[in-house]
């Protein structure tokens, strides 16, 4: 290994052996999701009602939407912690401008531009100066949230037009799926295709797995990263509009702390934080698992603290299980070689 950058041959998420490939992380999360859903439907009468499910899905809208660009970023070995603050800034702007008499149709494109600029700032600091995105976006997390307060202060703006509020809360006729979640489904399909079936997706994976090699292969790694940050900003800003209309309340502190929930969902979905590894299907399963499990626990009157413990354990178990299974299988295959094989 040359000393310039870490080669991630031994990164912990790796399951080098073909035998262990079946016990992939995202497969386990999907299995858990099915178990939770089935368990909920059988054991809790209020759970599998279309009313409740559409609540639960609606509740997930913003986290789910933001998780998509976050997945792309994490696969490209970057992260954006400022998403929740961009959401808040967008919400505050929406409130301030609506209060000032602007029309929603003009505000939303403006929010998207603001989101793009916010993402551009992140992206430029990361790609031009070569700063770690974790540090940059902790900084912009504070900055953008601060700007939200500058824009709206302590005010809370409400009373948004009914037709927009309906778009954010009503379900697609004939289904329990709320419009924002329907949007997510479409966006998820597009993202999955881009990530797993196009050249751009190949380039993102290569960038995240080994940036230098990707650069040598003619991939414009900086441009890709910049673009992903912009997309993340745009989606977060748009999620801010949905959030505001859905709750009918524009406030500077909207979505506070949402970033960790998004990252938890992405990690739960089996995306390797070191980049270069992960599937979008896993992330969708991760998002749904977190959301439905919380909903189920709430319905069963499980204390909020316990929900937090369950979420934490879920994260730990989801990474631990494949490793343990792989270890056991290896041990069975090579009683003597087990140590070296599993520590490769």
């Amino acid at each position, binding site marked *: *290994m*040359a*000393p*310039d*950058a870490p*080669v*991630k*041959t031994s*990164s912990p998420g*790796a399951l*080098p*052996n*073909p*035998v262990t490939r079946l016990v992939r992380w995202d497969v386990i999360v999907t299995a858990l999701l099915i178990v939770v859903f089935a368990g909920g439907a059988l054991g809790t009468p209020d759970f599998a009602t279309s009313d409740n499910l559409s609540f639960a899905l609606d509740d997930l809208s913003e986290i789910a939407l933001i998780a998509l660009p976050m997945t792309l970023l994490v696969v490209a070995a970057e992260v954006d912690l400022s998403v929740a603050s961009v959401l808040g800034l967008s919400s505050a702007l929406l409130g301030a401008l609506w209060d000032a008499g602007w029309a929603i149709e003009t505000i939303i494109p403006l929010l998207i531009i603001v989101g793009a600029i916010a993402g551009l700032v992140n992206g430029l600091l990361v790609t031009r100066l070569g700063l770690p995105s974790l540090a940059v976006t902790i900084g912009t997390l504070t900055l953008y949230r601060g700007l939200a307060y500058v824009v709206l202060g302590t005010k809370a703006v409400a009373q948004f037009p009914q037709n927009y509020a309906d778009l954010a809360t009503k379900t697609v006729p004939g289904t329990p799926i709320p419009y924002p979640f329907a949007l997510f489904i479409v966006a998820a399909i597009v993202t999955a*295709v881009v990530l797993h*079936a*196009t*050249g751009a*997706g*190949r*380039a993102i*994976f*290569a960038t995240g*797995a*080994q940036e*230098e*090699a*990707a*650069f*040598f*292969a*003619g*991939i*414009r790694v900086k441009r890709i990263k910049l673009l992903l940050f912009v997309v993340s900003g745009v989606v977060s800003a748009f999620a801010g509009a949905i959030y505001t209309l859905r709750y009918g309340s524009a406030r500077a502190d909207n979505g506070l702390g949402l970033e960790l929930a998004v990252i938890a969902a992405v990690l739960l979905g089996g995306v390797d934080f070191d980049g*270069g*590894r992960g599937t979008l299907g896993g992330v969708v399963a991760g998002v749904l698992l977190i959301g439905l499990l919380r909903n189920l626990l709430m319905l069963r009157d499980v204390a909020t603290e316990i929900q937090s413990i369950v979420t934490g354990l879920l994260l730990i178990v989801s990474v631990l299980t494949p490793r343990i299974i792989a270890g056991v299988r290896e041990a069975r295959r*090579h009683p*003597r*070689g087990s*140590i*070296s*094989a599993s*520590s*490769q």
Partner: protein
Amino acid sequence: MSESPPILALERVSMAFGAVRALQDVSIDLRGGEIHALAGENGAGKSTLVKILAGVHRPDEGQVLLDGSPRDFRGPGDAQHAGVAVIYQEPTLFPDLSVAENIFMGRQPRAGLGRIDRRALRAQTAALFERLGVSLDPDRPARGLSIADQQIVEIAKALSRDARVLVMDEPTAALSGNEVARLFTVARTLREQGCALLFISHRLEEIFELCQRVTTLRDGRLIATEELQGITPDDLVQRMVGRELDTLYPKQDTTVGEAVLKVERLTREGVFTDVSFEVRTGEIVALAGLVGAGRSEVVRAVFGVDRYDAGSVTVGGRRLPGGSPTAAMSAGIALVPEDRRQQGLVMDGSIERNIGLTTLRALRRGPLVSRRAERDRAADWAIRLQLKYARLSDAVGVLSGGNQQKVVLAKWLSTEPTVLIVDEPTRGIDVGTKAEVHRLLSELAADGLAVLMISSDLPEVLGMADRVLVMYEGRLAAEIPRDEATEETVVAAATGRNRREAA
């Protein structure tokens, strides 16, 4: 000498990685006062054997014998305590630590209270470098060392252990003549002191120069262990490859056309200065020079990976914008970089994806990448380059070093370039495949490709090049046509002994 009992031995060892059986029933013994060679094609299992000796892998079957009694190495630490020092095929340095700390990590000289004695650390490192005849600064960080310098540090690290057994997995692959000679001197001294040495190289002449006995592996099986005296290089090749080899340097006659790649007065401050040359269609131009002369830097700048401060690069009459590999690629340049693990491959990625990475556009069906086309292309090249692999969807990281190099070649040849730049294209490649690569380059040149080849392997330079450019300390020192190129003229230019000519 051969009567002395083996210090370290493997007895009927087998080892498998999933479906790949890397070693099957292999035995080898390393005796004190002897340098033992290990030969075999890429993927024959040499490095796996080394890693078993080093305690990195535990064999599935068979055992490791130390001084005649079985030992169970539970990790590299155990082997080190038993007096085994290893130079791995790929350098394993700590980029953020100083060179001296790299060498002595885990065994630093101590001052009072168990603290590190930095002065002694520096002095001991300097002494090691002196022994190897290099002048690296012990305090500089390992980050940014060239591959060759990294290899030197690895050698120093192994020597510093004062081990009874020294295992060297292709230590010379990145080195040029001088450093190799030094290394051999040191190795012989160790042999005389009674150490047991294991030496791996794909340069057969080195094996014959240095070693007494040779063990040959083929496809993970032991073929023979024999005295080197009494066999010829052709015999050895026969054992490794299982067939006769015609010629290592199958240079074809070509018609040289017009210049496609023109490099004019290219300068990158502090790295290389005023480099001008051109490469014509149908021609193989070698860029020779000592390690550190700046050859890789020049081609990196030409390809756009690095920026340059002055000068220009033109391909087919059109000037390239600096600093953009993408532009260079669309102008028809391909660069096989020197550091395959960092620059050449995505180690986590599958073989097919790595090969397809440079031709994503060509693999498109509509907006999507066609997996079938990707796989077909990879399979095609795998056959052409005799790649040894289990599945095309396996990560390239699990391939043997030489096979990784083949994947890099495939990745770039599949772009069908007009100018092919190869930086140490056969580093770590076995003789059989080396001949194959040479034939390929030669055929491609005959078909009108312009090839620029950097190589530290002098016979390769002399055997393949139509023209030899020699660099010395960041400048072009000489341009030597094929019929004038000899070992003497090239070395003279590379060591700066003919400076008048160069001006």
